[in-house]
């Protein structure tokens, strides 16, 4: 059975979904990812779905589950590059993926992950001022 490759970049795991996800593939990805987060001690997971054109409620749920699982394992999940049609479909299905962070593209996603994983390290306080 084919699997979706998981690449390691520093403390971030990078997953690019280039094929149409079917249910078994999605579940396999969830298994592999949870395994790899633990093995590699990853702090962030970046899932690029810019080539994904079709989603159903199951795939949507799996994405949510992956985020929840990695949160339990202390890693942050960012889903990047969602197509407009996919976003509309997910919203219409009632799946707004509340626990998942999103970004427009891989670059932005990496920035976000860097910012989030940096928070843990003792960092000089930024001067953004009080924000609501």
């Amino acid at each position, binding site marked *: 059975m084919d699997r979706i490759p998981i690449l390691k970049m520093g403390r971030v795991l990078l997953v690019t979904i280039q094929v149409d996800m079917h249910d078994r593939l999605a579940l396999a990805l969830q298994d592999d990812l949870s395994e790899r987060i633990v093995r590699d001690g990853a702090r962030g997971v970046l899932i690029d779905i810019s080539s994904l054109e079709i989603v159903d409620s199951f795939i949507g749920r799996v994405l949510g589950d992956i985020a929840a699982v990695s949160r339990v394992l202390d890693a942050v999940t960012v*889903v990047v590059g969602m197509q407009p049609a996919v976003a509309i479909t997910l*919203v219409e299905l009632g799946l707004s993926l509340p626990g998942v962070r999103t970004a*427009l593209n891989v670059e932005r996603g990496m920035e976000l992950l860097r910012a989030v994983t940096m928070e843990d390290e003792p960092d000089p306080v930024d001067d953004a001022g009080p924000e609501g």
Partner: protein
Amino acid sequence: MAEPSSVIPAILADDEAALLDEWIGEQTAAAQVRRDLLSEVELRQQSAEFLALFRRAAENGRLDDPAGAEWEGVRDLLARLSRSRAVQGFSPSETAMFVFSLKRPLFARLHARVTDTQALARETWTATTLLDRLGLFTTEVSQHSREEVIARQQQELLELSTPVVKIWEGVVAVPLIGTLDSARTQVVMENLLTRIVEIGAHVAIIDITGVPTVDTLVAQHLIKTVAAARLMGAECIISGIRPQIAQTMVHLGVVLENVTTKATLADAISVALRATGHAVTRIRS
């Protein structure tokens, strides 16, 4: 009922050229004002084509059933003609006159050929019913094509009325004007999301100053749009909430959770600029 065969096909076959001339004369007399929209050559060509098809259909088909298969050619021609005339600006009755004006030359020939009064009455009745039904057909088609035009314009208006404007690098805004229904929300959502990708926007501002009322359904649509934009990785700000609308929303129990809301577009822009790392400062006091 065995209907005695009509002389109408024979008239059409024997006298086509003269009938055509007379008919065109009738049409130009009746529709003298429309010379600006339709050239004589075009009219003659259309009329000749109609007569030829009409003759063929009358020979093969039933004269009392213009909806039959033999009349398809005639109906096609009439449909094409009504449609093009509707676009050219003819009124439906002017278009119907194309068919109705054939009555006088045709009846004159029936009169000349049929001597028996009873037979004449019958022939006249057949011809007039047939032409009436064809005339009504043109009216129907032209009305239908006008409705198509209206529907298309509605669609265009829908798209025109929801522009997505780029405010600054990474910031887009949609000023919504008019009532939000499901169809419009769909268009707004699609436009907004596509532009977010194109521009690479971090922040999208939805300005509802021009939305007259916000009920639960409209709020639902807004929340959906915000959720879809968030899934793509852009943050949404809803601005332009008028005091009355804010009160209505609270009374209706509409909760815009996790959505940044601002009273004015200016506030929203300043928040968006700050979020993208820009600042607006006054250079003169």
